[in-house]
C-alpha cells in the first residue's frame, strides 16, 4: 500500500524522509566498509529483477484477485539488510518517478514502510533465527511467512500513523487500523508464500547461485538484534516526539509553522520584502482597495467552529460564490496561458539569413 503525497502534512513527510535518508546513509556506509565490488552490479540487477517480478501478476487461488511480489523480504534474504534497504529504496524511487506511485514527498514514507521493516526487523529478528539451524523448505516457508507478516503489519501500521498524524484524513484510528491490518494480513500470506517459493526454487535449481550471492553479502552475520531494536525504538520515539509536538501545538501541524514563515496569519505586522512590495503595488494601483486578507478570518472561523459544530451556517454564501467565481476564472486563465505558450512555441523561429 503506497503512501501518498496528498495525505501527508509536510511535518510528517519531512520527518520520515529524514529517517529514511539517515538509514540510506547508514547503509551506504556499512556497504562501503565491507564491499565486495561484485556486489555493485549484483544489487543493481537484482533490483531490476524485483521490478520486473513486481509487474508479473498471478491469480490468488480461490479469490480471483491478483497479487504480486513486494520484494523487501526476498531482497533482505538474498542481499542482507543493508544492501537490501538500498536496493528497495532505489526500486521505490523509480516507481515514484515513473509510475507516480505515491509521489516524491511520500517516497520517504514508502521507503521506510516497505524497506525498513523487512530489512531491519523481519529479516534479522525473525527469518534469520528460524533458518539458522538447517534450511529445510518447510523452515524457509515458515520463516518467510512470519517475517513477511511482521514486516507488512508494521508497514501498514506506519501508514496508519503517518496518515493520522498528518491530519488530512478523518478516519478514526480504530477504524483505520481495522481496515489496514487485515488487508495486509492477506497480502502478507501471499507474499510470504512467493518469497519462500522463489528461495526454494532457486535452492533446488541452482544451489550454487544462492550460495555465491550469500557469500558475497557484506557483514550478514554481525547485525546485532539489540542494536536494531534500540535504534528502532529511538527513531520511533524521535519521530513520534516531533510529530506529536507539531500535532499538539497546532492541529494543522507544520502548516502552522509554514504559515509563520510565509507570514500569512500575522501578515500586517510582518510584511517584508516581496509581500510588502506587492501590498504597496496593490494599494498604488487601487486594485482592490478594501481588500483585506480575508483568509485570515476564515481560518480563525474554522478553528472556532471546529469545536462548535453547529456554528457553521454563519458562513455567508457570498464568500463561496466569489470563491467559486474566482476559481473558475483562475482555471480558465491558467488554461489560456497554457495554450498561449503552446501557440508561441509552435511558431517556427525565424531563421536568421546569412549574408551571402
Amino acid at each position, binding site marked *: 500500500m503506497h503512501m501518498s*503525497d*496528498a495525505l501527508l502534512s509536510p511535518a510528517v513527510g519531512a520527518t520520515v524522509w529524514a529517517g529514511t535518508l539517515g538509514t540510506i546513509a547508514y547503509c551506504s556506509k556499512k556497504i562501503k566498509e565491507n564491499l565486495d565490488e561484485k556486489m555493485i552490479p549484483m544489487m543493481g540487477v537484482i533490483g531490476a529483477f524485483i521490478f520486473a517480478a513486481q509487474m508479473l501478476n498471478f491469480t490468488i487461488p480461490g479469490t480471483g484477485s491478483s497479487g504480486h511480489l513486494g520484494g523487501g523480504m526476498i531482497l533482505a534474504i538474498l542481499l542482507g539488510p543493508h544492501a537490501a534497504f538500498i536496493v528497495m529504496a532505489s526500486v521505490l524511487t523509480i516507481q515514484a518517478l*515513473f509510475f507516480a506511485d505515491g509521489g516524491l514527498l511520500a517516497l520517504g514514507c514508502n521507503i521506510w514502510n516497505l524497506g525498513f521493516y523487512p530489512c531491519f526487523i523481519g529479516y534479522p529478528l525473525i527469518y534469520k533465527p528460524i533458518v539458522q539451524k538447517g534450511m529445510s523448505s518447510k523452515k524457509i516457508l515458515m520463516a518467510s511467512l512470519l517475517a513477511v507478516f511482521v514486516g507488512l503489519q508494521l508497514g501498514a501500521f506506519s501508514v496508519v500513523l503517518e496518515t493520522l498524524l498528518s491530519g488530512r484524513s478523518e478516519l478514526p484510528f480504530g477504524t483505520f487500523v481495522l481496515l489496514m491490518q487485515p488487508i495486509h494480513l492477506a497480502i502478507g500470506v501471499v507474499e510470504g508464500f512467493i518469497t519462500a517459493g522463489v528461495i526454494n526454487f532457486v535452492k533446488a535449481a541452482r544451489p550454487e547461485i544462492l550460495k555465491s550471492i550469500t557469500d558475497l553479502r557484506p557483514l550478514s552475520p554481525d547485525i546485532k538484534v539489540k542494536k536494531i531494536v534500540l535504534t528502532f525504538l529511538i527513531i520511533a520515539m524521535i519521530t513520534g516526539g516531533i510529530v506529536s509536538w507539531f500535532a499538539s501545538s497546532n492541529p494543522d501541524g507544520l502548516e502552522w509553522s509554514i504559515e509563520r514563515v510565509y507570514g500569512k496569519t500575522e501578515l500586517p505586522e510582518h510584511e517584508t520584502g516581496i509581500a510588502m512590495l506587492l501590498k504597496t503595488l496593490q494599494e498604488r494601483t487601487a486594485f482592490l482597495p478594501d481588500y483585506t486578507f480575508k483568509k485570515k478570518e476564515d481560518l480563525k472561523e474554522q478553528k472556532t467552529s471546529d469545536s462548535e459544530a453547529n456554528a457553521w451556517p454563519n458562513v455567508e454564501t457570498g464568500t463561496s460564490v466569489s470563491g467559486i467565481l474566482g476559481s473558475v476564472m483562475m482555471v480558465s486563465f491558467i488554461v489560456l496561458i497554457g495554450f498561449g505558450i503552446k501557440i508561441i512555441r509552435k511558431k517556427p523561429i525565424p531563421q536568421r539569413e546569412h549574408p551571402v
Partner: protein
Amino acid sequence: MNFDKEYFNLGVLDTLSYKNTLVHRLDPRTKVITTFAFIVTVVSFPKYEIAGLIPFLLFPVVIFALGDIPVWFILKKVLVVSVFAVFIGILNPLFDTHIKYHFLTFPVSGGWVSFFSILLKFFLTMCSALLLISTTSFPGICHALRKLGVPEIFISQLLFLYRYIFVLMEETLRMVRAKDLRSFGKKGQGISIFINLVGTLFVKTIERAERIYHAMLSRGFTGTIHFVLKEGFGKKDFVFMSVTGITLFIFRAYDIVGLIGRLAERMFN
C-alpha cells in the same frame, strides 16, 4: 497485457525525458529542487483548503506547454495511478459531516471539502512527479541527487536499476508472452507457475549480473564508478528558480482566487 502497458508507459516517459525544450535544458538540480518546493508548498495547505490550491495548477500547465508534454498521456497516468489517497480520502465525507459551506443553497459538509482538497493535492503532486521525470532524463536526476549529497552507492544503484529495468522487463515480457501463448486463456494459473517464472527470471538475472561484472572488470573497475560531470547550472536556472520561488510564495501567502473572485463580483455588480 497489463504488463505490456506498464512497460510501454515507462518507455514513453523515458523517451519524453530526452526531448530538447527549454524545460528539458534546465539543470536537473533546478528541477529537482523546485519540484520538491512545489510539493511541500502544496501539501502545506490545511485540510479544508480548496481555493488556495487552484492557482498552483499554473505550474503543471506551464510545464506541460513549455516542455511539449502530451497532456492526456500524463493525465491518464495520474488517474489510474495509486488509488490509495482517493480511497482514504473518500471516507472523509462519512466521518466529517459538519456543514462547512453553502454552495448556492446546498449545504456542503467538511468531509467533502477535505476530500476535494485531497484530490486536488493528489493531482498536483502526482503531476509534478510525472512532469519531473518527463522533462528530466533519469541519469540527469541521479547526477543532480549526487551533487546534492545523496550517497554514491544509492546513486549507482539507481543508475544500474534504470539501465537494467528495460533489459529485464523485455526479457520478462517475452517469457510471459510465451507462457500466455500456451495457456489458452487459463489466466494466471496461480502461484506455482508464477514461482517458476519468477525463479527462472531470477536465475537468469544472476547469470547476467556475473557477466556484467566481468565486463566492468575488463574495463578497469575497482569498486567506484566515476563520471565525467558537466557543470550545467546557468543563468536560465537561476531565473527559473527565482521565478518559481517567488510565485510559490505569492500563491501560498495570498488568497489569489478570493481576490479575483471579489474583483469579478465587483465588476458584475
